[in-house]
């Protein structure tokens, strides 16, 4: 049944007892053309595009827990595409373009809210960095505005521009914003199932069957399955699955934490990121401040970080917004992010034939969801990455052609 205001009203007369399942829980079939391992936004999206744009019929998505239960449902929902390097810009902007039509495309409101995102600059070096990135965005056709201190103060009420590290300016991307993270997983799941995709939850992959260097099947907690192609999209467990297939990755899995405050009436209507003072914050539609910062430096699969990371988000938040000091932290949580040496993802082929991988999104995966899913679907279908995906191959770690987004933020003098 189509989701619409009309149907909401219509169903209200039957007390909403006639809504169908958004997605069902089919049994694992013995054989699939393509199996996607990982039921997060990226995995479900990949299945959706495989079915919709490449007409693949027999697809399953295997999720070891509940769909959207990984980083899809644990991030701070920031969406932007103002990356420095052409390769990143192309990838993330492809995503933003898809985000803009996603609610209609999926007939599911993912609440993509283009409230605008400000990268704050606190030093001469920061100004150089945002100017360079701003220009690179501008010339790549990505909207970018470089603001001075007064403009920032005017556009962001209550911000403290004269703190220990004064706000000298900001890089504004108006098309950036946030979205409702759960809805992305649910929307893709519902749309994918409408196209015949089997979504199988509580199904953990325990082994990968390989014969003559080609993937042929999977061993799961719900039995074994024959496959023609497999796409691994297992954020937080990339290395674990890679090891099952007999290869390793340039990845460390580290804790990333975030938190929300108690809900308050609208007080902040844009997204703020500060790399120097080190915090990012936005306000959700529910009224909660959603706050995040850096990840821990040690490897962990515990989905818990060390609490000082949370503490180190609070002082910067109060420094930038002294008025938030009396608000309350309501809930904090941790996720596992797979970090690559250059902070860019790995999308493409693996040493195993017909086994493809999409991982290493670090802290930036959510914003890329539709773009990542879209290019990965094509990669799996064709067996070759398209132009957007190509630079993010595993091989770059041998050739040295890193897409180093971390590098540009080096400290000067």
């Amino acid at each position: 049944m189509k989701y619409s205001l009309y149907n909401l009203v219509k169903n209200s007369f039957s007390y909403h007892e006639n809504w169908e399942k958004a997605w069902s829980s089919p049994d694992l079939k013995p054989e699939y053309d393509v199996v996607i391992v990982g039921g997060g936004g990226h995995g479900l999206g990949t299945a959706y595009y495989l079915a919709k744009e490449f007409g693949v019929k027999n697809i399953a998505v295997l999720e070891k827990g509940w769909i959207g239960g990984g980083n899809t449902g644990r991030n701070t929902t920031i969406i932007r595409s103002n990356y420095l390097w052409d390769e990143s810009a192309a990838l993330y902007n492809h995503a933003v373009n898809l985000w803009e039509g996603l609610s209609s495309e999926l007939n599911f409101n993912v609440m993509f809210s283009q409230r605008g995102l400000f990268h704050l600059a606190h030093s001469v070096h920061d100004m150089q960095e945002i100017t360079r990135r701003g220009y690179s965005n501008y010339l790549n056709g990505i909207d970018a505005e470089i603001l001075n201190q007064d403009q920032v103060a005017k556009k962001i009420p209550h911000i403290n521009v004269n703190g220990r590290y004064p706000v000298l300016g900001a890089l504004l991307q108006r098309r950036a914003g946030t979205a409702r993270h759960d809805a992305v997983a649910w929307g893709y799941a519902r749309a994918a199932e409408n196209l015949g995709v089997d979504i199988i939850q509580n199904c953990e992959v325990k082994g990968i069957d390989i014969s003559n260097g080609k993937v042929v099947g999977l061993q799961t907690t719900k039995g074994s399955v024959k496959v023609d192609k497999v796409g691994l999209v297992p954020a937080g467990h990339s290395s674990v699955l890679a090891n099952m297939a007999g290869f390793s990755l340039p990845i460390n899995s580290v804790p990333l934490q975030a938190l929300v405050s108690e809900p308050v009436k609208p007080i902040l209507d844009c997204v703020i990121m500060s790399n120097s003072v080190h915090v990012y914050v936005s306000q959700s539609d529910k009224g909660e401040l959603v706050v995040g910062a850096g990840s821990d430096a040690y490897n962990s699969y515990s989905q818990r970080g060390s609490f000082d990371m949370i503490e180190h988000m609070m002082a910067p938040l109060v420094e930038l917004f002294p008025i938030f000091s009396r608000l309350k932290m309501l809930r904090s949580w941790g996720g596992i992010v797979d970090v690559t040496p250059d902070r860019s993802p790995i999308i493409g082929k693996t040493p195993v034939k017909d086994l493809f991988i999409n991982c290493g999104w670090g802290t930036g995966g959510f914003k890329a969801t539709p773009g990542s899913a879209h290019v990965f679907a094509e990669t799996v279908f064709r067996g070759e990455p398209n132009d957007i995906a190509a630079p993010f191959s595993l091989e770059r770690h041998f050739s040295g052609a890193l897409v180093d987004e971390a590098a540009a933020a080096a400290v000067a003098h």
Partner: protein
Amino acid sequence: MSNQNRTIYGGKVNREKPINFVFNGKSYIGYQGDTLASALLANDVHLIGRSFKYHRARGILTAGSEEPNAIVQLGLGARTEPNIRATEVELYEGLEASSQNCWPSVNFDIGAMNNFLSRIFPAGFYYKTFKWPPSMWLFYEHFIRKAAGLGQSPTAKNPDRYEQKFYYTDITIVGGGISGLLAALGAGRSGCKVLLIDENPELGGYLLDYNFSINEKDGKKWLKKIIEELDGLANVTILKRTTAMGYYDYNYLTALEKVTNHHVEFSNTLPRERYWRIRSKKVILAQGAFERPLVFADNDRPGIMMASAGQKYLSRYGVLPGKSVVLFTNNDHAYLTAFEFVEKGAKVTVVDTRDLLNARISEKCKLLNIKVFKSYSVIKTYGDKKVNRIEIQQVDKNQNQLTGEVENIHTDCVLMSGGWNPAVQLFSQSRGKLKYDLKINTFVPDKIIENQKIIGSNNGQFNLQENLNESFEAGIAAANELNFNSVEKVNWTGKEEIEFTHSDVEPYMLGKKKVTKGSKHFIDFQNDVTAADIFLAQREGYISVEHTKRYTTTGMGTDQGKTSNVNALALMSHIHNKPVDEIGHTTFRPPYAPQTIGAIAGRSVDKLFDPVRKTSIHEWHVENKAVFEDVGQWKRPYYFPQNKEDIHQAVKRECLAVRNSLGILDASTLGKIDLQGPDAAKFLNMIYTNAWSKLEIGSCRYGLMCNEHGMIFDDGVTSRLGENHYHMTTTTGGAARVMSWLEEFLQTEWLDMKVFCTSVTEQWAVLSISGPNSRKFLEDLTNIDLSKENFPFMKFREGEVCGVKARIFRISFTGELSYEVNVPARYGRYVWEKFMEHGKKYNITPYGTETMHVLRAEKGFIIVGQDTDGSVTPSDMNMDWIVSKKKEDFLGKRSYTRSDTVRHDRKKFVGLLVNDKKTILPEGSHIVEKALKQPPMKMLGHITSSYYSPTLGYPIALAMLKDGISKMGEQVVVPLMNGKIIEATVTDTIFYDKEGKRNNE
């Protein structure tokens, strides 16, 4: 009339000490010892606020930290605080509070119309609409955002202080109820260091509100003695008004102590709250349990509260919330409250879902003539802003439905008791595993992970007698396990008039129809989640507990589901007809209760937010009006404006002074590392790209450091002070990184290399004098022979300057004749002032980092981090001359032969001169292949440095340009955001004194 619901006697409030307070603009009087909630009830105020989604009238449900309904905006102006639980606020003189989430007023709230439209707003309705047209979402969202949110954020800076504390102890006990107190006594008597935390202003927990006996005597007196003994124990620390917030691995607890929240006068020196970080060898959880609401239609009206809350208001605050009261229960213990209410003059009717009732209770009910409806259920309630009537109906448990006549009862207060849920939030945070206990129908602790005990009702043990002795012995055992000597066990016999009994979770008995046909059976009060919403979520496939939670938002309010979780799970188990254990539960996440952000920030605010690192000459710069630049944590003079100069005028003047006579720069912030040992040279050969074996004693050499990936990450001059002794300098920002880089290889890779690295950054003040007159100037002030012959360029000498032992390095970052004078930091300012004094005749000019940048740019010297960005090799910077071909190996070398690093079209470091001779290209603007009307345009590189050169009289720029070397002399275009297109010519990177004569003078 005031305090009309206050009993004449009884309770712990001090009727002699009236306290004035204001709620929603109206003045009231409460008493010392009241909470805001009890004082409001005493004054017959039941309507406290409006609910999140439907804006339904809401009152006071509980008497503690689990309260979902009675949350208010507390205080005014900069000190206003949203979402405060009235049940926790201790009344103080002048307190002002108001209702939230209502407009224009809590009595007449426009938003309440949502309640009538509620049928089209089921759980997750927003996922199904507002999608078209996409461009409109921001518009719809605007109204959704306005409607959402609870209280108002302050809009002024918080004037209060928050302190923090690290604390180590043997045993931390969370919860000062009977179990916690006795555990503390047991451990305390054993002599170990004990910390007892309780969130209330008074110890004793629920026993403060109920009558009980110890060894046949009045329990309250006994309780008092226990507390007195604990107060007397030096090794026991008691924190009241302190909530344990987070429980992390390694027994790390965080807690928030309210220090002055309950005072009217605010203090500038005392903190409002103190945030504790607690490390304990052992933790004992004794947090007790929360009473569970019952689920029935319109169970959310003001006047409907938990039985235990009614008990507390009556016995602790002397407040009778209603005169004709209905107790709706599924267990025995709640009858105590019925009796209490009758004794205090209320008329009580009991609706009990069970058909059997123990004889003693029946008799007492008869005695007090309490009418009891057995195996009945409340099915609906009425009353606009407060409950005034309820409907009850018989329950047929076997048929699992309601039967018979619907009967009406008029009432002004409904007390409900659906049994008790242990407060397992912290236990669960500590990764303890829960199991569902079918006896008491709730989750109880199962597997413990940390070094921890959990006792009393917190552990699902509700029997007083058992708790007394078990808790005391748990305390002793904990101490024993930490090797403290045992103490004698004690045997108390404790009795309550009625013991706790088994209780069911009730929602299942409502029958599916009743629930879903429009009426509202609330599960989560604050987030307006009804039983129907839970049904809907299951119907639509949101079956995992996490999906149900996220889809319906149950348990996601500011109370984090303390009252709603178990009912929601029980309902799910009913719908799927599976045991609750198979349904599972959501994870409890820290903090236990909402925690002030300012308290977590502590004193790291304002000027203490982050250290300002200062050189020994800093104060002089301040006194001389320097404009500062942040470089990492350092403050460096950016430029020294005179009179009304702007940055351009000042920098121009400073540059010309250096080029023509004499300038002075405070270069103390440069990183300095002392290297000593027989393998020092060998080590430098590995660390730097160039060769160091042949550097003579007394000589200096510039070096580049690259990471193993082959990319430049720092540079600087290193000098050989002695046979095995070197002095390394690094960039200001890179100092710590370089030190760690050196130690990493010495400590983890080349353990047998004999080199010691020691940071001496702050030991030395560095005064860099530069300009044609610098030699003449310095000669008067030092005993060192500065003659060109004796002290040539790139040499180092030791001697005295202004009577101070000094090291002088003849190196230059400006291209002029320069000396870097190093003196011990304590003399930095003295020597600087001497220099200024003696330099007058050369018009000595202090200059800042901007002038330094311009001067070095004129010479084409790179700044790591500005001209390089972590993705460039020495070769990219045309610095192959500094990359040794002979050396077998050095860090990064191997990476230069990879396919990507040998690419010919890599970006190269070049100079740019704008053709119009006047435009200063923005640093960060890009060179494009072809300028087009609008983007996208293909980029070839970017401008890394760009200045007006006062020396040359026109702008200069440095850039990274694709295949730049082969483009020398070619024209390139740089489009600006304002649409202008700037044409420039590619040049080499040295704009001034190409032969480098001047610094060799």
